[in-house]
């Protein structure tokens, strides 16, 4: 049997994979809904349980996970996801609780939320967190809504512009637009940092605030951070911390202490809940004391030892069905308890050590566009000695052949051939060394066998894909696929 198929292609009329309880009340007939029922055809697979299990087991083998091998994806913090996190979710009642159950029956669940937000507040140097946002970009949107609401509450209606460095993640400007504000982009200086003079020029009484990632997206610490936050505050704006790179700061610096007023944390990055192939993540948003009233509803509060759900009138409103990706939050709390204060203190150090070691060891082979130390991730700008004009894309694809995931490529946008490597603290010197060896080998291959690199990867389940074809043909469903094949004949 060849398993290289879509689940629909295993389908055979009459096969079933489910078992349901017997009908107890046959006198009630769904057909009584008559005209309300669908007539349109519905094509779902008809397969057995074994068909289904084999199919998904086989396609899983075409994926690369953190447990498959080294995953140095910059800006994504692909650290190891401890097994205890998963066990906690599965062992207890949390996944079976309904959020509208009587409050007396969900005290444990509410307490977990409350304690996690307290821990995040301590780690961030902020007053309080909401865990309701579902992901980093969602957190940004919520944080910007809080920023806007703060100015509105002070009747300072003209503050609608948000300063964003050109090195920022694409979500920053996009979130700003969807919070109903405008983007003012400022250029980075030749060291990849915020140009303080350029910042001064755009400051005015129309500035709502500034969004900043620190370490920034080039992996370096904004050394003028104190002055930046002072300038923005003096002009009446607020500082937003994009928590994408928080991992480097654990045990070193707290965003609140740097002068940030609002931030989000990516629990799926810094706090080890898995990425799940692109979600579910979790993007808690924390604020300083003077912004707490604006946090979204519902909130979980505590009175003595009793936890309860509250809706506040000054809140920006509701931004999620209820408490966000709760089970993801649970995993993050398991991680925090497991590591405790002693070990959380060391994360930034080891993550930074690993990244700098790679920086030093590869600097003879790959171009370093920025001088000096990096933080938890290092950015190269393509190959150094490159007579055959081998692109970053080719290097990345070749790494896949060696059983390693590619780094982030073509981001940050400041450089043309960006390769962004984030090793995280959970990778050993052995793994890092073997990665360095592979990177060197690829640099050699770029000189000796450029064609082989341009056609890489060679050892993966598929080779390079035709992305233009995908965008042009727009085949997004099995139905589209069948229509396409029919027209081809």
């Amino acid at each position, binding site marked *: 049997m060849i398993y290289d198929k*879509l689940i629909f292609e295993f*389908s055979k009329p009459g096969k*079933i994979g*489910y078992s349901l309880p017997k*009908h107890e009340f046959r006198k009630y007939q*769904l057909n009584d*809904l008559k005209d309300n029922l669908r007539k*349109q055809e*519905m*094509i779902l*697979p*008809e397969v057995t349980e074994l068909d289904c299990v084999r199919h998904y087991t086989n396609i*899983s*083998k*075409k*994926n*690369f996970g*953190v447990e498959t091998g080294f995953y140095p994806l910059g800006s994504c913090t692909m650290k*190891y996801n401890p097994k*205890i996190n*998963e066990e906690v979710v599965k062992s207890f009642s949390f*996944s079976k609780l*309904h*959020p509208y159950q009587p409050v007396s029956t*969900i005290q*444990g669940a509410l307490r977990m939320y409350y304690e996690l937000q307290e821990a995040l507040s301590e780690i961030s140097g902020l007053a309080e967190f909401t865990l309701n946002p*579902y*992901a980093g*970009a969602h957190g940004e949107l919520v944080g910007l809504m809080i920023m806007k609401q703060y100015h509105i509450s002070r009747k300072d209606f003209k503050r609608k512009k948000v300063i964003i460095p050109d090195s920022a993640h*694409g979500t920053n*400007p996009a979130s700003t637009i*969807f919070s109903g504000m405008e983007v003012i982009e400022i250029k980075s200086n030749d060291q990849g940092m915020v140009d303080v003079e350029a910042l001064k020029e755009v400051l005015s009484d129309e500035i709502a605030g500034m969004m900043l990632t620190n370490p920034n997206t080039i992996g*370096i610490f904004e050394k003028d*951070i104190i002055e930046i936050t002072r300038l923005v505050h003096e002009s009446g704006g607020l500082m937003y911390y994009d928590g994408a790179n928080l991992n480097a700061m654990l045990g070193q610096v707290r965003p609140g202490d740097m002068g940030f007023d609002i931030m989000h944390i990516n629990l799926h990055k810094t706090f080890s809940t898995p990425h*799940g*192939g*692109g*979600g*579910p993540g979790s993007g808690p948003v924390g604020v300083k004391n003077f912004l707490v009233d604006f946090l979204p509803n519902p909130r979980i509060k505590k009175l003595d030892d009793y936890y309860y759900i509250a809706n506040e009138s000054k809140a*920006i*409103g*509701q931004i999620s*069905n209820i408490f966000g990706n*709760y089970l993801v939050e649970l995993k993050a709390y398991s991680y925090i308890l497991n590591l*405790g*204060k*002693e070990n959380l203190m060391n994360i930034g150090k080891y993550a930074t*050590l690993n990244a700098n070691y790679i920086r*030093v060891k590869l600097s003879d082979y790959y171009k370093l566009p920025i001088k000096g130390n990096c933080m938890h991730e290092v950015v190269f700008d393509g190959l150094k000695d490159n007579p055959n004009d081998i692109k970053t894309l080719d290097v990345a694809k070749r790494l896949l052949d060696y059983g390693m995931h*590619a780094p982030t490529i073509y981001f940050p946008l400041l450089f043309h051939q960006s390769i962004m490597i984030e090793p995280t603290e959970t990778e*050993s*010197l052995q793994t890092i060394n073997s990665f360095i060896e592979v990177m060197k080998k690829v640099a050699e291959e770029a000189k000796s066998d450029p064609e082989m690199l341009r056609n890489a990867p060679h050892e*993966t*389940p*598929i*080779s390079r*894909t035709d992305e233009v074809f995908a965008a042009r043909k727009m*085949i*997004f*469903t099995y139905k589209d696929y069948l229509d396409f094949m029919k027209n081809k004949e």
Partner: protein
Amino acid sequence: MFKYFPHTKSDIELMLKEMNISSIDELFSTVPKDVFLKKEYNLKSSMSEQEVRNYFKELDKENQELVIFSGLGLYDHYQPAVIDAITSRQEFLTSYTPYQPEVSQGTLQYIFEYQSMIQTITGMDVSNASMYDGTTSTAEACFMACNITKRKKILISNTINPNTINVIKTYLKFKNYEFEFVSSKNGVLDKDDLKSKINSNIAGLVVQNPNFFGLVEDYSGVSDLLHELKSIFIQNSDISALGVLKTPFENGADIACGDCQSLGIPISFGGPTLGYLATKKKYARKIPGRISGYTLDSSGKRAYVLTLQAREQHIRRSKAVSNICSNQSLMVLFVTVYLSIMGKRGLEEVNELSYQNSHYLYERLLATNKFFDPFKQPFLKEFTLETTLSHDLIAKALLDKNIFGGFSLKQFSEEYENLINFAVTEKRTKAEIDTLIEVLEGLS
């Protein structure tokens, strides 16, 4: 040493030596001294794995798992064992967004299968790769309507789940869009009120079917009314119900959206679930979020890639159609495996069983003369009754029997005074339903 930090003392020494520095702290030399953390976090000490287990075990003692007879957007349907087995595989669980298609075909293929399933269930043409939840996918559908029509006002049916309404309101308010409510008559959308409010400034109308009260609404004439004025028709639905109910396509909807929790995802205290969003092909380039598309690799092999990325924030930045970056990918796998196991017949049977169970409960409750149906409209698995009994009394009496049901809608709005909610899925046994009836019969 700690189990997730692999660096031995000699490793660190060696690394520092290779880098020509004497301590890790030197790497932080650009950080201004004033902002350095001066002391350890004020947090709990590190716990062993056993201590973590015990901690959550203690915490869980303050929770009570109940037999669920309420819905409100989160339904206690059956989850085939296969789902947990598949979704626990590290290849799915620990991978990143499938930006490198050569090593991400697993994720890209199940997303493609999911999109195919959402397409056939909703009857629409194209689905995205999922969004955070049903409330946000509905808010994004409103943005889409504004984007397509270049108009700024959304009509919202007031029979939509209040959580969804609240999220739509927040999203629209901040984006400087307007909204107005369309009122209900007998618990369903009032088409006369809609007629009086629709005009050429309206970007779209959002409705929910089955609605917040569990009632099945009739949208005949609605799409014509909207399309005459080039407005967008958005239908939010609990997706499981669409396995048997008239599809958004059949209703003439332009965008179908809602939550997929009912397809194999545990209630999970509200999340993670996932929001679906499907539309017509002509609006494909206006869809927010990721999309997986079919293509070929360089040897002509069938493959899947993330496509139409020019809509998205990482390419288009401030001009993107949405700020969303992730999807709820792992939850997509829950839904895809669920639908593979259930198939068309299974999905229909889940609805039949839920229909039968809920109608049995409905009839028995009315027979007590303590509950009344204020609406008298068709429903599927969820219904709303009026009662003069104290809602607190009901909750307390049911809790004594380990049951959560008869949720008081007053908690959402004062205008729902006296209304309580029930939902009965295929998971509820006759014995459980009879226990609930017995408890309520005994109340006065």
